[in-house]
């Protein structure tokens, strides 16, 4: 702490010295720029934090207070709102469904993408064409496929079950997963695989014993990417499932809105409860999530 303070003081001293070497109009300009920079940073900060903080504070108020004024703290912190939210029918099954869908589709997606990315390494005729075919879907606005996805899940006889969601999510994110994993696997030198081949490893053994362990960071990237995306998805969940036993969190929120009508306070409490897991996980695993979400995206 002291160390940091000294560093800070030295820093400002050297900055001040640097400032003195400028002429006065230049100095004014530099100060204005510095002020603008901080205004910008703080504006972005407020923009990012305000919705969550406001909803969180409001979730402890009475409805009367909510309607009275937007800028105030609750007089008495209302635990009742959270009790109402936790007693909702279907909240726990929605949590269960969301976790199940997220884990299974993340697993499926990573395994299929890893197999494809591995196979694309071998000298296959039409390799490039297959790769192009596999990743072109990345650039297609999948919301256009709303109707076909409903028809397909009907045809596969999985409509209105969690499996419709699992397969759809897996299919949608395969292109970007394959792209990220392929570009990650390309950094693994071929000599390692050749050495294993000479030692008598089969194609499958090389995959499970060498390729997968080496590609763990890349796999973690797409896994996190997929998990977050599935946890937060709403549109396809709402058109592919309806019954309570298959609802995910986001779809349930829509139904809870109807349950609570004008009980805004309980509604806000529900929102906070449903998004807390994501925020807590993000704060705990921050570095991992950040590198997971970004490392692969850029290499393609």
């Amino acid at each position: 702490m002291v160390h940091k303070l000294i560093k800070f003081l030295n820093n400002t001293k050297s900055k001040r010295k640097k400032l003195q070497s400028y002429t006065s109009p230049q100095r004014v300009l530099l100060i204005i720029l510095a002020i603008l920079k901080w205004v910008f940073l703080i504006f972005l900060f407020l923009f990012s934090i305000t919705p969550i903080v406001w909803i969180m504070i409001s979730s402890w108020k009475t409805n009367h207070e909510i309607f009275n004024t937007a800028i105030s703290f609750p007089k008495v912190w209302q635990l009742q709102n959270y009790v109402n939210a936790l007693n909702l029918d279907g909240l726990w099954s929605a949590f269960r469904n969301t976790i199940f869908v997220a884990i299974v589709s993340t697993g499926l997606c990573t395994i299929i993408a890893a197999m494809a990315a591995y196979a694309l390494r071998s000298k296959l005729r039409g390799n490039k064409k297959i790769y192009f075919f596999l990743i072109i879907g990345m650039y297609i606005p999948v919301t256009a496929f709303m109707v076909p996805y409903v028809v397909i899940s009907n045809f596969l006889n999985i409509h209105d079950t969690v499996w419709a969601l699992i397969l759809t999510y897996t299919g949608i994110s395969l292109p970007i997963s394959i792209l990220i994993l392929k570009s990650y696997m390309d950094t693994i030198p071929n000599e390692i695989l050749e050495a294993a081949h000479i030692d008598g490893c089969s194609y499958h053994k090389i995959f499970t014993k060498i390729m997968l362990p080496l590609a763990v960071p890349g796999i973690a990237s797409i896994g996190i990417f997929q998990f977050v995306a599935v946890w937060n998805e709403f549109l396809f969940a709402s058109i592919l499932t309806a019954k309570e036993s298959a609802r995910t969190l986001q779809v349930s929120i829509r139904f809870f809105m109807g349950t609570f009508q004008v009980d805004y306070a309980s509604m806000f409490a529900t929102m906070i409860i449903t998004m807390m897991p994501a925020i807590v996980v993000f704060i705990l695993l921050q570095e991992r999530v950040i590198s997971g979400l970004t490392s692969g995206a850029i290499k393609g």
Partner: protein
Amino acid sequence: MIKTYLSRFINKLNPIIYLLPAITMIIVYFGIPFIFLIVTSLTNWTAGRFDNVEFVGINNYIRIFSDKEYWQAFLNTFIWIGAAVFIHVPLCLLTAIILSQKPFFWKFFRTVYFFPNIIALFTLAWMWLFLFRPDIGLINEILRTIGLDSLSINWLGTSSTALGALIFTWMFSVGYFTIIFMSQIGTIPNELYEAATVDGANEFKKALYITIPLLRDAIIIVVLLTVTFTFRTFETPFVMTRGGPGISSMILPLMLYNRMVGNQGAIANTIGTTMVILGIIIVFSIRKLFASKDGT
């Protein structure tokens, strides 16, 4: 002899087996839907059973192209994507450049800027809907408090401001792309900046002549990602305005959804077909426009 041939054949077969699940999934979830879109867009299918379906040619296309709502949604979608590419991405770049100079609390800022990206878009849209409420919302309350009463209007309920208010809700959530840009700025060797300092370049010139040119590839990828992400956006207008008032904030995915739940499957798929084609055209023209000599 036969054995070696057989093992060679099996060796050739192995990669294909490994590719099979991926290819199947892509065919089922991208190939078939695309063909399905095109085929049904030429019929009078109503999103129900497939008997009684008749071939109607390009009638559906004529119908949507003469629909005022379609063109409004089309225009709004372009404004939507344009705002993302020409304002949102530069904002992210600016933030990344500022945060890369490591001002105080930069890690803290980076974390907080990421919050809107970790919350579900659907929940976020609900939160913004309440923030924008003219009676209980925070935004108008703040505007009234600081004396801007004339600005405390019903932002989402006025046709001239609705789309702008929707865009505002994601315009400044710079977290994700800022981090992508920062990770790329980190790879730029420091010597370049030192040399520039010796030559007397200021921060602004350094950003313009060193950082931005070297980030070219990252910028292209981020622009492509932005285009596909924003083209897919559905939740924000669905929750906050339902495309209204009237059709003033309608965008293509929402119009498609409305037609789908209105049992107009063929019309919905016609809109879908135009969306897919439009998306591919935009992406490939961006790639063409920025294509570097080495073909990336």
